[in-house]
C-alpha cells in the first residue's frame, strides 16, 4: 500500500498533465492562499524578523561549514546518553539499519512520526518488503498512505486533497488498515480529525517500535527536536519501547541556545502560527520515561555531494518549512507531484539535483527549469536560501552535463548566432531593421520549441539607435 516516484516524467510533461486537473488547481489555490495570509500576519508581528532570518542562516552555515566537528560531537553526546549511533551513506544502508533493529525486536509493525528523510529513502517500502508494516500517524501522511497516493507538499503531503476527498478515503480505506471510520463520518474537519484519533489510538498503545526523523539535532547536548501539531509525534516518541531516529547530517545545529532562533522562525514560516501545538526535545534515554532503547541513523544520501557545491550548499540550511512552496506561482498551479520527489516546489527544484547530481536523470535535470525566477521563494525563506541563484547555477551545470548531446544542438546554434549578432553594432542594426519589416511567422523553425510556450515580441519598426541618431542624441 505505498507508491514511489520512480518512473515519473520530466517536469514539463508532468506539469502539463497536472494543469489539466481542475480539482487539483482549486484545492491548491485555496490551501496556499490560506497559508500565505496566515504566515504574513504572524511574520509581521515580529519586529526583528529580518535579523532573525540572518541569525537562522548564520546558525545553519556555522553548522554546515564545520559539519565534521559537529557530527563527531553529536555522536559523542548521543552515545554518552545511551543512544546507539549508526551512519548510513545511502538509502539502502539506512533502510537496512532500521529493518535490522525491527528484526532484532521481532516487531511486525512500526508507528511513524512524519519524517522527510524516511520518505526520501523509501523506508516504508523497504520495511514492507521485510514484512514489517510502517504506519504513518501524521494526519496528512495517513491520508496519503490510505489513499495509495503520493505526497505533494513538504509540510502537508495531502494538500492536494479537499475535505470531501479525505472523507471518502477514510470511509473506504481505514477498515483494511485497522479500526474503520465511523459509519456516519462527514467531511467536517473536526470529525475527520476525530476519525484519525480513533483509528490510530490502538496502534499507538500497541506499537513496540517507532521511527522518527528530527527537525534539529543539537551537537553540544545530543538533543533531538521534533516539531509537530497533532500529538502523534509525542505518542510515537513516548509510548513504544524502541525508538529509531533517521536524521540527515545537515540537521545538526551547534548549540542548545541556537534553538531560540530556529523555534521562532519555523512555526511562523510553516503553519503560520506563533508556535506549533507541540514540540518535543529529548536527550538520549530518560530512565522511567519513554523508550528505553534508542538508535540514531545519521544519513548522508547525497548531502555531502550537495555540501561540495559552493553555490548550492546553502540549500542544506533548509528547515523544511514549506514557505517557498506556498508562495511559488509555479507550485501553486502544478502541485507537488509534478516535481517527482518528496521534495517538491522551489526547494525541491534545487535540492533534488544537488542530492542526486545532474547529467544522470532527465527528470532531475528538468527541475532547475521549473521556475520563473521571480524570487518570491527567497523573500520568504526563514534561512535566506537564495533559491533563484542556485537554480541559475544548476541550469548552467545541466547545460554543461549535456554538452555534445544531440538535443542541445539547436540551442547551441541559436546561442552562437545570437553571440555573433550581439557582438557587432552593424549586424544588430541589420537584424533589427529586418525584424521590424518581416511578417512574424507563428512557427520559427528550430525555435518553435521556444515560442510554443512564450510570446515572441514583435521588434519595433524603428530601433532605439536609429531614433537616437535621427533625434541628434549623439551630439
Amino acid at each position, binding site marked *: 500500500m505505498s507508491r514511489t516516484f520512480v518512473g515519473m516524467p520530466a517536469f514539463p510533461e508532468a506539469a502539463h498533465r497536472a494543469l489539466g486537473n481542475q480539482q487539483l488547481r482549486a484545492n491548491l489555490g*485555496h490551501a*496556499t492562499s*490560506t*497559508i500565505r495570509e*496566515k504566515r504574513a500576519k504572524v511574520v509581521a508581528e515580529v519586529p526583528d524578523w529580518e*535579523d532573525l532570518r540572518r541569525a537562522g*542562516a*548564520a546558525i545553519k*552555515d*556555522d553548522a554546515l*561549514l564545520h559539519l*565534521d566537528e559537529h557530527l563527531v560531537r553529536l555522536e559523542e553526546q548521543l552515545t554518552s546518553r545511551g543512544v546507539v549511533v549508526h*551512519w*548510513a*551513506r545511502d538509502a539502502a*544502508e539506512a533502510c537496512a539499519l532500521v529493518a535490522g533493529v525491527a528484526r532484532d525486536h521481532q516487531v511486525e509493525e512500526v508507528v511513524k512520526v512524519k519524517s522527510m528523510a524516511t520518505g526520501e529513502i523509501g523506508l516504508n517500502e523497504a520495511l514492507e518488503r521485510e514484512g514489517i508494516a510502517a504506519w504513518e500517524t*501524521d*494526519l496528512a501522511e495517513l*491520508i496519503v498512505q490510505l489513499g495509495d497516493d503520493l505526497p505533494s507538499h513538504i509540510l*502537508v503531503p495531502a*494538500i492536494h486533497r479537499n475535505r470531501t476527498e*479525505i472523507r471518502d478515503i477514510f470511509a473506504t480505506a481505514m477498515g483494511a488498515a485497522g479500526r474503520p471510520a465511523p459509519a456516519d463520518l462527514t467531511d467536517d474537519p*473536526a470529525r475527520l*480529525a*476525530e476519525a*484519525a*484519533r480513533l483509528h*490510530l*489510538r490502538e496502534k*499507538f*498503545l500497541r506499537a513496540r517500535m517507532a521511527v522518527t526523523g528530527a527537525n534539529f539535532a543539537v551537537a553540544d*547536548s545530543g*538533543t533531538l527536536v521534533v516539531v509537530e*501539531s*497533532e*500529538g*502523534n509525534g*509525542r*505518542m510515537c516518541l*513516548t509510548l513504544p519501547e524502541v525508538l529509531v531516529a533517521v536524521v540527515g547530517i545537515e540537521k545538526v545545529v551547534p548549540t542548545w*541556545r541556537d534553538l531560540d532562533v530556529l523555534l*521562532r522562525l519555523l512555526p511562523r514560516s510553516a*503553519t503560520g*502560527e*506563533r*508556535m506549533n*501545538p*507541540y*514540540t*518535543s*526535545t529529548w*536527550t538520549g534515554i*530518560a530512565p522511567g*520515561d*519513554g523508550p528505553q532503547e534508542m538508535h540514531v541513523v545519521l544519513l*548522508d544520501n547525497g548531502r*555531502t*555531494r550537495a*555540501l*561540495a557545491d559552493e553555490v548550492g550548499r546553502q540549500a542544506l540550511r533548509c528547515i523544511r518549512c514549506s514557505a517557498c512552496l506556498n508562495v511559488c506561482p509555479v507550485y501553486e498551479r502544478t502541485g507537488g507531484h509534478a516535481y517527482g520527489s518528496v521534495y517538491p516546489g522551489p526547494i525541491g527544484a534545487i535540492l533534488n539535483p544537488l542530492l542526486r547530481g545532474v547529467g544522470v536523470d532527465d527528470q532531475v535535470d528538468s527541475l532547475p527549469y521549473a521556475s520563473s525566477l521571480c524570487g518570491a521563494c527567497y523573500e520568504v525563506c526563514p534561512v535566506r536560501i537564495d533559491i533563484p541563484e542556485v537554480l541559475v547555477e544548476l541550469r548552467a551545470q545541466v547545460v554543461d552535463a549535456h554538452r555534445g548531446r544531440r538535443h542541445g544542438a539547436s540551442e547551441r546554434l541559436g546561442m552562437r548566432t545570437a553571440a555573433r549578432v550581439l557582438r557587432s553594432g552593424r549586424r544588430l542594426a541589420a537584424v533589427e531593421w529586418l525584424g521590424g519589416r518581416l511578417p512574424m511567422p507563428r512557427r520559427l523553425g528550430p525555435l518553435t520549441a521556444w515560442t510554443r510556450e512564450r510570446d515572441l515580441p514583435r521588434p519595433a519598426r524603428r530601433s532605439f539607435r536609429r531614433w537616437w541618431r535621427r533625434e541628434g542624441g549623439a551630439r
Partner: protein
Amino acid sequence: MSAREKILGAVRAALRDVDPSTVPARPAARRTPPPDREKLVRRFLERVADYQATVLRCAAADLAAEIARALPPTGVVVPAGLEWSVPGSRDGDQVTDRELDQVSAVLTTATVAIAETGTLVLDHGPGQGRRALTLVPDRHVCVVRADQIVADVPDAIARLDPARPTTWISGPSATSDIELNRVEGVHGPRHLTVIVADR
C-alpha cells in the same frame, strides 16, 4: 573503511574550499526591556486563549478551589511531587500507559511559560510526571505561577536544561492538514485548561 569514516571523509573533502576559521556573522539579538509582569501575564493569557484553550487566573488563596472546578469529579491522575492534593485522584506512577487511555484528566505544573507564543513548557520533573501522563488523557489542567511567565522563546531556552526531556505545549492538540486550516482535537489532549496563579 566504515560508513562513518567515509561520510566524515566526504564532509571534509566537500569543505576543502572553506577556511576552517570561518565563523558566519550573527546579528546581535535585539534586547528589549522586559515588559512589566502584569503585561506579560495578560499577554500570555490572551495568546493561550487564541489557541482555544481555557484560561483562568486566580489568587494563590483561591487556587485549590479553581483546580477543583477545572477537574472532573472522577478519573483524575496526578504526578508525584504535586503540591496540591486532589481528592479521589490516582498516582500517575501507578497507572500504565494503556490505563491512561481510560483516564479523564491530568493535573500538572509547568517549568516555564512563554507570553509571546502562549506556550507551556514541561520538563517532566516533580509535579509534571512522565511524558505519557500529559499526553494520553483527554484533558490536561496545568497550573502556572505568574512568575514563571517569560517574554519570548529565548528566555525559555535559557531557563531550560537540555539534559531533561521537554514538551512545549501551545494549546490543545490540533492539525492544519485539512485545507491548511487549524482544527483542534487530534491525538493529544483535546481540552487544555491553564490556570495562572498570582502570588
